[in-house]
């Protein structure tokens, strides 16, 4: 457990929760990033809704830029997976989140926070499968 960072995890987690609540209060919706991004891809026309969803994504990227400047260690990493696997992973993430209408933010944070049975199940499932996949991969393939 040499990499365990309990305090920054706690602090960051609370901020994520607050951001999601602020979104709910001002946008009256679940702060599910997969759904927000998907709407950016699929909404017709330049409605307020489209601009609001796009603004959220731009906010994420801007936040990323701020972190790269003020807390660069979080953004300095190299991939330990071949590119083709990352592409496959991306496709599965996209397909799966669209099918289940949510991801770690929509189901894992908001849905669990709402104590929604659907989200609780979805979260347990993607955690279990995520753990199984990540644990088996290095055993089956040399890193």
């Amino acid at each position: 457990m040499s990499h365990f960072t309990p305090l920054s995890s706690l602090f960051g987690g609370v901020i994520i929760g607050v951001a999601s609540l602020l979104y709910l209060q001002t946008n009256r919706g679940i702060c599910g990033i997969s759904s927000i991004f998907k709407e950016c891809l699929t909404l017709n026309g330049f409605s307020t809704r489209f601009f609001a969803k796009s603004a959220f994504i731009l906010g994420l990227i801007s936040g990323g830029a701020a972190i790269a400047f003020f807390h660069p260690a979080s953004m300095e990493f190299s991939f330990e997976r071949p590119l083709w696997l990352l592409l496959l992973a991306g496709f599965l993430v996209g397909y799966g989140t669209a099918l289940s209408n949510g991801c770690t933010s929509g189901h894992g944070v908001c849905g669990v926070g709402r104590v929604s049975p659907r989200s609780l199940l979805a979260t347990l499932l993607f955690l279990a499968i995520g753990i199984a996949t990540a644990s088996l991969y290095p055993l089956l393939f040399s890193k």
Partner: protein
Amino acid sequence: MLPIISSFICGLLFAIGLGISQMTNPNKILGFLNLFGDWDPSLLVVFAAASTTYFIGYRWVVDRSITSSLEKFLSQKKIIDLRLIAGAAIFGAGWGLGGLCPGPALTDIATLKPEIILFIVSMAAGMLSAR
């Protein structure tokens, strides 16, 4: 106009939360998901802190008119079905393979890493394929 400005601020704040907790680093995520490595429970703490904060705010801070109409709206959206189960499993597999999910991946666009851009293009393709 308010939804657009507040959405931007929420995205900004959310990304800062991800960055502070290092959830933007896929290796940090895989450090939790891979039980056989140098196991790192940080992600669990992030989830617990975020969902607990949301739970408290959802019940006691956000306007009741907003939460009750949201609950009404969401209760129409069904029961637990195959789409939910299969979707969650497929998402989990993708997450376990790459250590990336939508939020951190989009935030990581700021790193300008080509792998991130390609991941997102692939993710978009997957989302559009599921319709």
